[in-house]
């Protein structure tokens, strides 16, 4: 087993949901799906985004797409027109998630 960043084998997309963002991450085979289901816990993702996400993290599973979907509440500095941030819509949060290192 080696330490590997998700960006080596997974894909992601993110966008805004109110003043939070959603980050969808998926892989291309069942073995990797079991791996991310096990290792990408809510706690792990919350810790990873500690400087970005000030609210709760929720996780959903979409097994048909070998995907997990995370909602990161209060992660956009107000969201929409309220936010002053460069990434007011969380467009780059998917790539940030892919920086997580897992055992594979």
């Amino acid at each position, binding site marked *: 087993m080696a330490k590997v960043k998700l960006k080596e084998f997974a894909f992601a997309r993110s966008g805004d949901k109110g003043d939070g963002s959603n980050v969808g991450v998926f892989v291309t085979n069942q073995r990797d799906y079991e791996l991310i289901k096990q290792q990408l816990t809510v706690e792990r993702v919350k810790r990873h985004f500690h400087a970005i996400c000030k609210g709760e993290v929720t996780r959903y599973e979409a097994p048909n797409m070998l995907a997990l979907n995370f909602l990161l509440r209060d992660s956009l500095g107000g969201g929409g027109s309220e936010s002053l941030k460069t*990434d007011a819509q969380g467009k780059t949060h998917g790539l940030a998630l892919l920086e997580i290192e897992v055992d594979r």
Partner: protein
Amino acid sequence: MRDKVLIGYGQGFWGDSILGPVRLVREGPLHYLALDYLAEVTMSIMQKLKGRNPKAGYATDFVAMLDRTLPEIHQKGIKVIANAGGVNPQACLQAVLDLARKKGIKGLKVGVIEGDDVLARVPELIAGGHGLVNMDDGRPLSAVQDRLLSANVYIGAFAVAECLKAGAQIVIGGRLTDPALVAGPMIHEFGWGPQDFDKLAAGTMAGHIAECGAQCTGGNYTGWREVKDFVRIGYPVIEASPDGTFVVTKHDGTGGLVNRNTVISQLLYEMGDPRRYLGPDCTADFTSAVVEEVGADRVRLSGIKGGPPTPTYKVSLSYQNGFKTTGQLTVSGPDAVAKAKLCADIVWGRLALDGCTFAEHEKLVEIVGAGVCHAGITEASDPPEVVLRLGVKCADEDKVDRFGMEIVPLVTSGPPGVTGFAGGRPKATDIVGYWPALLDKTQVKTTVRVEVS
């Protein structure tokens, strides 16, 4: 009945490239062209424009696009569905009819869908017990009612189908949901009914995949190195079948990429609970879909399940919520990060000297280049230069403008290496607050009307 209906999606948002729709019309077969011109903030901007000019308040980009494509659209018989009407669908209809006449096109049928704009009805709705409470935080609308800018109901696909049935070749709506622009033609072509939840869910999923234009054909894809020819990226074409299955593809010979990964990426975009995607016409279960590659740049979706919709429509309201501005400077090395931090402290300090202070949550300091987008995850300790972005927001417009005056002086009165200031002093702009709410469906009645050039 056609056994395959081709629906292109040429505009993912207000400001998307005009090449999307132009090339969809020119470079391959198409029965329908769907175009989304709205975002949450757009409606409030359009209400303001309409307040100044009763003939404004719709997406003028749509008319500019038709100026380039209408003769070909008319000749090929392509039907166009757009939520370009904004808060003034009638004015948009007139502009399109005027354009058709100017181009000598006779007999073009242009339809409008109205009934989504409930701004004028808000007092009546409140009086009738429809609270329009904020669905995110539960506040009553009275908190912002005196500052409302817009109020629009998200209208579904059956209104689109009704307008097509009335004979329109160009369908103009206000706040139609993005997926409705795709599901509407399917309902019209295949005769689906309000109880055909699996099929409506399929139409909704097809619309969700296509609704951001090139985001399902290789755009914004984290496997971007696989994508060929971004310059000529093809916009999506949905090849729909009467049984609710569909293929996501793009015109032959265009750039970009459609595969299982690019489609799944977009399915996950702005997703909440994937088992319960709520829309005005049905509830779609995104986890029910079988997603498979069936050829080069062809991905088929089948097996989609849906259920009944909720008894309410989603309403998007907006209100004036104070002022904001941001300004930026470039700070070169050596010691770019340390000097940028010093610059920020100088600005806040000088404003305080003049009696102008902001609460922590009203201020923003970003040192772009040192780790802003991925703060706390990927950061650079000593980049050769950074962009310092400073911003404020508050209820007092004068204070926001005062802030804007203290950025340029840093060039001569701060640390060395401050440059890159252009565009004058940053000025206060409106913050448009977003207020999502629910409204009983019995309170909303849409109407369609068709006029001929």
